């Protein structure tokens, strides 16, 4: 400790050391007699739960309860579990283009166009969507972090997800090391994903006319991911994080339920073919996050740039502000998120019957060029003070409302006959989430 050599550094290091001491779960152990049986059982678990309701204007709606629990282990490690259940229902766009004439489609489960109960008809001018779409998803994960030394941590984990037509399992491992008095953390993580797809009604042959019902059995998909992260304490109240990630997916990457309209010169849909995407995709992204906090205000700015081998480039910017009240037990958090992406090289909202057979083809609007804005407002209240003996530090109730609007851009000009139709309707959605942390 050379005087004058590094002004203020003793204090900075002491703050870090005392935070480690006072923040450690160790001391939370013996706390007296107020806690009841359940209290003791979950005493060491931090639990976050949320119930989200999502609704797209005229399309899908979803209800999603999420629960996650984190426990600090006695060896300095950490165990995290999470569980999600999704229930989706509503109308799911099938990829075809609106038309001046009614269009009739068969649901994916149909075996032929004869069985009327599997058919649905779309009125002129409406976006074709399967009105009987419903899906349920169950997902869970576990992550175990263990200290290798005072500065190094290893974490290993796994995730699974289960739907009627899709199963996914992922394993991941990460190493994290602190440097520079724990002001700098570097992490490296790898993951491997294996998916199994069994589309309802079978896997359609790519590019085949959908009325032919050329369908096969199950398909698989694999993914590998690599992520390099750097977190830096810039100042006592300023945290900065940079992530570089590389993902590669291979195998069956189509959406087995998406069609592409074949439109003749007069604007009539003459056929629908199944989409065909490349069987590999490599994605690179850079993510930068800065968070600065003052006594009653904090600001977070997140920026992301992503590019992939399908020709999609995307930019994301998100700004979040948080204001606390004078007692610091309630906060408001407005946020705005801007997103823009370019189209995949093989995105075609429709094709002409005379067009040379294209190798790769998709009309999925998620692969189109679009931009989107999300406005959000969150309110949270700490209940520790209000629950008396039942509360504990960190008990919080919060509610979040988000409004999302997506606009398709730069779409190829439609045939003259389709003028006047809203071929690429914008998507509006709301999300309401209620959360309770204990």
């Amino acid at each position, binding site marked *: *400790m050379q*005087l*004058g050599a590094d*002004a*203020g550094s*003793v*204090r900075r*290091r*002491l*703050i*870090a*050391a*005392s*935070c*480690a*001491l*006072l923040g*450690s*779960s*160790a*001391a*939370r*152990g*013996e*706390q*007296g007699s107020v806690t009841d049986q359940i209290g003791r059982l979950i005493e060491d678990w931090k639990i976050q739960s949320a119930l989200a309701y999502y609704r797209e204007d005229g399309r899908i709606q979803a209800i999603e309860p999420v629960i996650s629990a984190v426990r600090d282990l*006695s*060896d*300095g490690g950490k165990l995290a579990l999470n569980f999600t259940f999704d229930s989706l229902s509503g109308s799911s766009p099938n990829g075809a283009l609106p038309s001046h004439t009614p269009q009739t489609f068969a649901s994916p489960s149909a075996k032929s166009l004869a069985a009327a109960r599997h058919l649905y008809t779309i009125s002129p001018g409406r976006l074709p969507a399967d009105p009987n779409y419903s899906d349920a998803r169950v997902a869970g994960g576990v992550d175990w972090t263990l200290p290798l030394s*005072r500065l190094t941590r290893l974490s290993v984990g796994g995730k699974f997800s289960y739907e009627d037509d899709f199963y996914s399992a992922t394993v991941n491992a990460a190493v994290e090391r602190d440097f520079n008095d724990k002001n700098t953390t570097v992490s490296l993580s790898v993951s491997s994903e294996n998916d199994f797809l069994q589309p309802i009604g079978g896997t359609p042959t790519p590019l085949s006319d959908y009325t032919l019902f050329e369908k096969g059995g199950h398909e698989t998909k694999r993914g590998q991911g690599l992520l390099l992260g750097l977190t830096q304490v810039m100042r006592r109240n300023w945290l900065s994080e940079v992530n570089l990630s590389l993902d590669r997916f291979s195998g069956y990457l189509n959406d087995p339920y998406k069609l592409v309209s074949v439109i003749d010169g007069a604007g009539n849909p003459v056929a629908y073919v199944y989409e065909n995407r490349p069987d590999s995709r490599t994605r690179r992204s850079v993510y930068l996050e800065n968070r600065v906090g003052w006594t009653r205000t904090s600001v977070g700015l997140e920026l992301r740039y992503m590019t992939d081998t399908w020709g999609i480039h995307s930019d994301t910017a998100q700004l979040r502000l948080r204001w606390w009240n004078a*007692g*610091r037990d309630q906060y408001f958090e407005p946020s705005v998120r801007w997103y823009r992406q370019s189209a995949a090289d093989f995105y075609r909202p429709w094709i002409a019957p005379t067009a040379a057979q294209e190798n790769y083809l998709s009309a999925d609007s998620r692969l189109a060029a679009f931009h989107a804005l999300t406005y959000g407002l969150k309110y949270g209240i700490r209940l*520790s*003070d*209000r629950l*008396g*003996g039942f*509360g*504990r*530090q960190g008990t919080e109730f919060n509610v979040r409302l988000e409004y999302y609007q997506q606009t398709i851009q730069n779409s190829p000009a439609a045939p003259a006959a389709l003028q006047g139709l809203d071929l690429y309707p914008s998507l509006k959605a709301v999300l309401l989430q209620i959360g309770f942390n204990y």
Partner: protein
Amino acid sequence: MAGPCEVLLPTTEHNARELGEVAAVEAWRIEKKYSRYRKDSVLAWIHAQRGSTVRLDEETASLIDFAQQCFEISEGLFDITSGILRRAWKFDGSDRVPDAAVVQSLLPLIGFNKLRWRSPFLTIPDGMELDLGGIGKEYAVDRAYDLLMARSPVPFLVNFGGDLRASRPLPHGPWKVGIERPGAAQNAAMMLDLEYGALATSGDSHRFLLKDGVRFGHVLDPRTGWPVPDAPRSVTVAASSCTEAGLLSTLAMLKGAQAQRFLQEQEVRYWLLR
């Protein structure tokens, strides 16, 4: 713990008693666990196992981790193994300055780096001793503070013998805190305004030796075994936690003549009395 332990709350509700008990139970728990005067303390148990390796509970391990970091940050000035110097030094106002050879003989038994510490396993060599007195009281304030934070609907101040921490201002303004100035008359206590955060004071003017006109203060440098020359009589530091404030005031004392400069460099509010 020396000195009164109190929790101040602006309330007429009967839960004040319950909140006070929460803090008191925590203070007693920590004192019982780490007192060097009690035979049933964890500290006594550790000392009884000298020479062999013991596995510490999580809380004790975090305290030893913290002590290790303080030792490293201060380059050996703050050392929980230095309590053994009390065998040579008795600060009773007399002129019994110990023989240099006696002090010298204790030095091999001092030094955190002589312990074998790989959390949670600790081995103390024969003859060495741990003393958590330099951390314990401030730690107890912070612990009690955390417990009350989760329970108290109103602002509060935890005061354990002059080391204290407040949660937020009173409805009508800051807390008024009187800091005793050792050596100065009682009525010369300094009044401070504190909205939130912690204050800790080091120093005790009644503990010294006087020989041949030379005053030997009670702040001992663990590296030499001798009092730090020109140590301030008292140092009070304001910081976000009591643990942090306590360490800064202790380190300032150990800096002797350089105390003021050290505190200025840490950019903290402090009050120093020479």
